[in-house]
């Protein structure tokens, strides 16, 4: 966390990667369980950079998000950092 702060701004940008994790049926849509992408300033910006069909599925109201294992509340808009992991969690399956 924060180890990139000593690098010049341009290098920080180029090194900045985050991991997206797709659970359940989102894995099929994304074509894989996880994906490394360039960080953007916000989750919205990260999603905007994805394929439109996948982006739509990730924005469904029943899909919850977790950043580094912490579930986001509705109005949370965390600032993303290098190495963050964003998990997209569709409703869990019934018994």
């Amino acid at each position: 966390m924060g180890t990139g702060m000593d690098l010049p701004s341009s290098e920080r940008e180029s090194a900045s990667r985050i991991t997206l994790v797709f659970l359940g049926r989102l894995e099929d849509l994304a074509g894989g369980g996880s994906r490394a992408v360039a960080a953007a300033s916000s989750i919205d910006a990260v999603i905007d950079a994805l394929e439109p069909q996948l982006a739509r599925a990730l924005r469904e109201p029943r899909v919850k998000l977790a950043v580094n294992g912490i579930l986001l509340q509705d109005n949370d808009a965390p600032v993303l950092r290098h190495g963050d992991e964003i998990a997209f969690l569709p409703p869990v399956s019934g018994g």
Partner: protein
Amino acid sequence: MAEATTDVRLATGPFDPAHELEAFTAAHPEAGGIVSFLGQVRAGGGVEALELQHYEPLTLPAMKALAARVRERWELDGLLLIHRSGVMEPGAPIVLVAAAARHRRDAFAAADFAMDHLKSESWFWKREKAGGEWRWIEPRDQDFEDIARWG
């Protein structure tokens, strides 16, 4: 009296429910009653395999939090909670919940509550293979009704 124990495990490979239950029972000689629930992959009905997916940073912490709620709500001598993830064949154990208590009612209610909440709240995504095709399982309304029973 032996100290109350809570044993919560996310199993990524097969486990032996008879062995687990025997060890749990042996650890709680002071309990008058032990209620267990074993869920297994149903044979028949054309399901060839079941896969449960978990998300490590959420799944195990949520199971532990559920176990803590159960321990607060009922007076138990011990609580065991094992849940599989990964691909399983028909007949394979999926989940084992066991509650040991001095009073029968507490053991039944604790195991029942734990199962209702495990099924509907825990972070597992499930798909079934039938006719060679994998299909994701969506949430069921029954789970929400089960939860509502506990007020």
